[in-house]
């Protein structure tokens, strides 16, 4: 039986179907999860997808982090459940304090959607173990509040502990500090990325298939475990 990867739908989630598709293409079994349901239905890993949960009206991710499903996810993430937050999902993870720092309004104040070059900085996480260290990839970025911010000490710690998972190459699309595109928690099971790997899993619809490795990485991790 292939591992089950859950994808949470909050009100206003948009890339949930895309994340489910990416999970399926990677070879895992995709399981839709609903924000009001505290049960994770036995999934082996969870994806918090992109979108505008609750319209992003207060702050991106601010309201979603209070949903019943998040209470369970926070608990289990602390015990090692692999959790990936993409874009809005990353914002939810920061709001839920599973990851340090916060995502603020883009420095140029516009929503920006472009194909972005990234460098994978950490390959020891549950979600990036299939990349080679320093690998350059291209996946779409699309956000209005994607500027990663944290105080200097936190940033230094992230660097020192190898928790910076990916950085923007070329022009920084949102003014993120230290060009940070993604980070992990100390244990490496919780990862947040601003760009969208689920939009780069098929040659027909993506700028590359570089994003697929995120989803096969967790599969590898789960099968090995």
């Amino acid at each position, binding site marked *: 039986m292939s591992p089950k990867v859950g994808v949470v739908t909050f*009100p*206003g989630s*948009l*890339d949930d*179907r*895309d994340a489910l*598709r990416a999970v399926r293409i990677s070879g895992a079994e995709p399981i839709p999860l609903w924000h009001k349901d505290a049960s994770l239905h036995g999934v082996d890993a969870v994806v918090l997808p*992109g*979108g*505008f949960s*609750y*319209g*992003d*009206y207060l702050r991106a991710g601010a309201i979603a982090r209070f949903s019943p499903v998040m209470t369970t996810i926070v608990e289990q993430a602390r015990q090692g459940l692999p959790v990936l937050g993409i874009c809005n999902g990353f914002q939810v993870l920061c709001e839920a304090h599973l990851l340090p720092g916060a995502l603020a309004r883009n420095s*140029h104040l*516009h*929503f*920006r*959607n*472009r194909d972005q070059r990234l460098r994978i900085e950490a390959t020891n996480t549950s979600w990036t173990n299939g990349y080679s260290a320093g690998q350059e990839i291209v996946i*779409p970025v*699309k956000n*209005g509040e994607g500027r990663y911010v944290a105080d200097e000490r936190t940033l230094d710690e992230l660097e020192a502990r190898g928790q910076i998972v990916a950085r923007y190459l070329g022009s920084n699309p949102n003014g993120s500090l230290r060009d940070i595109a993604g980070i992990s928690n100390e244990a490496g099971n919780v990862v947040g990325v601003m760009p*969208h790997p*689920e*939009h780069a899993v*098929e040659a*027909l*619809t*993506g700028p590359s298939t570089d994003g697929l490795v995120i989803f096969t990485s967790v599969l590898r991790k789960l099968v090995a475990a």
Partner: protein
Amino acid sequence: MSASQAPGHLAPVLDTVSAATNSPDVEQPYRELGLADDEYARVRDILGRRPTQTELAMYSIMWSEHCSYKSSKVHLRQFGEKAPKTDVLLVGMGENAGVVDVGDGMAVTFKVESHNHPSYIEPYQGAATGVGGIVRDILTMGARPIAVMDPLRFGAADHPDTKRVVNGVVAGIGGYGNCLGLPNIGGEVVFDSSYQGNPLVNALCVGVMPADRIQLSAAKGVGNIVVLLGATTGRAGLGGVSVLASASFEEGAEDARPTVQVGDPFTEKLLIESCLELFEQGLVVGIQDLGGAGLTCATTETAAAGRSGMRVELSTVPLREASMEPHEILASESQERMLAIVTPENLPKVLAIADKWGVLATAIGEVTDGDRLVITWHGDPVVDVPPRSLADEGPVYHRPMARPADQDELNSQHAERLPRPRTGAELKRTLLTMIASPNLCDKSWITEQYDRYVLGNTVLAQPEDAGVIRLSEESYRGIALSTDGNGRYTKLDPYAGAQLALAEAYRNVAVTGARPIAVTNCLNFGSPEDPEVMWQFAQATTGLAEACQTLRTPVTGGNVSFYNQTGDTAIHPTPVIGVLGVFDDVRQRTPMGLRNNGDVLFVLGTNSEELSGSEWASIMHNHLGGRPPRVDLAREEALANVLIAGAQESLIAAAHDLSGGGLAQALVESCLRYNVGARVRFNEDAFLALFAESTARALVAIRPADVKQFTKMCERFGVRSTRIGTVDTSSKALEIAGQFSVSLDELRAAFEGTLPALFN
């Protein structure tokens, strides 16, 4: 204005049906509400008494130009009368949007609509709610909305007010569409001073559904329940009917009455998901979105379509402000609302699904026997009308028409007489100036503000010729969409201009390899009360209807926007035409960018000395005159056949249509797409080869091994192919033999710098 200045003269208490019967002589402010004397007389005639205040408001809205199409109806009829017979049309004009059969049991619905005037007053919200409105139109048909497009027209790029409008409109379209999770797959951006005080913000939405699950608006089945879904109802967009405000408004509160709507895309997203679940479970008898004219329009149209009666208790409508009066509730244009007709047995399920998504749902009435729409306010009837008199039997005008007095003069000023660049250096300078002009430059400063990836089915989007969407992950069936419109061509010749817009959209779809099958349109014109505008309108609709007949692509729906003018001057007549095409297998799509070294470049079609109305004349000489390029629909069709067959047989490595800016523009765009150079040589006059805008042409790149087969295919379809050069992946330059060579870096700097410099 007497009514608003002296509200006291209106009946101070609730103007019920019985009050109206008993006080036939009360003076009513129908003129302030936009009703003509004879229209008011007709209302009295229909009702056999004077209308109540609420009824008066309803007639004034439903018989307005916007809702009744009273000036355009006689012309729009041609789209039906001249419609080509095709078996793909499942729902034609008349419903909220047309529906076409695309095969594999799927149906597609699409439509373009305008939100021009609100977008000038408050660009962000005007544009945002424009997207919201067209998305609900598509949802109403039973479809899941799957993409949007945004044809835009702004005033002069360097005018001080343009930045405000551009920034607001683009942020509003992105803000709403991105938050709804709909990829933006294309559109247009045109700057012209004729749109200075009247930008055009058109929005297109496309949706897909199982072909056997089309929803219609008819309210049928006596005893069925009328359910209002979505946002609460507020005093938004009351517009004209605010003159009816009674004493409940304090002195001077007039200005405070908002005409501006604030969009709430989050609520719309939930509304979409809940409605789709209702459709999937077969819980809906009829459904209608609330757009212009709000509940007035939704109740009368559903009842009229169902040939039923309806009873609504207005006090059940959830309000934002408790003090709202019946006519305000009925006229409110609060966004993000839908009206569903459901059976009493299904009502609990419907309410439960709405609750699951956090959507407000309220039973506000029921379908009744007979043909009266009766609306009560705390039990008292304030409306008792035959719904069809509002929805279907509005006034119809044959407005006077006159060919513009200066039309001959305009047509005699041929651009072919203007001085042209003579040397290679002059040609190069012309090229660099043109690609940097606001109308021809790179639009990614705008399109990067839109999500193109969400839903994961976008195969092609900006800057490709058409947006292409995969409909099925099993069969790979797909669609392509393009919108086009050229106000300058249409100004020079409205009949030809509308046909040229259709031809360009058709060509853009065909270039990707899709087979064009259906058309939507948004007709943006000046005032219908101006006979010269009316002439333009009549010419354009006839031109479009006849071209659709020839190309066998029926018009499935659309929208008319009149009264677009800056001061007293009408905009250039601007029909925006959207064409839908289908792919049996979307993996066969042809992209626009040059990629492989040594591919052979051909121009398909025939060029001639056609410069009037061109980008060259406009940009280099600020000139508009003469006659637009010749329309040749037979050649367009032949060209499309080559492009479609070529895609299906995988013979075409890249293709890009030729339109504004001519071959020069197409070469630059095709080279810059993947930063690949080309070497080109002309046997004809280089200036005309580069900048003339003859139609029915495309640039294609063919692998050397396929050249023979490809040129044979062109001959078979009767399309002329002229070999003009080769792709050169190492040169990083565009070289025009004997004239000039320009590096891709220089081209890119010119092409990409303009919009950021203007609008950041």
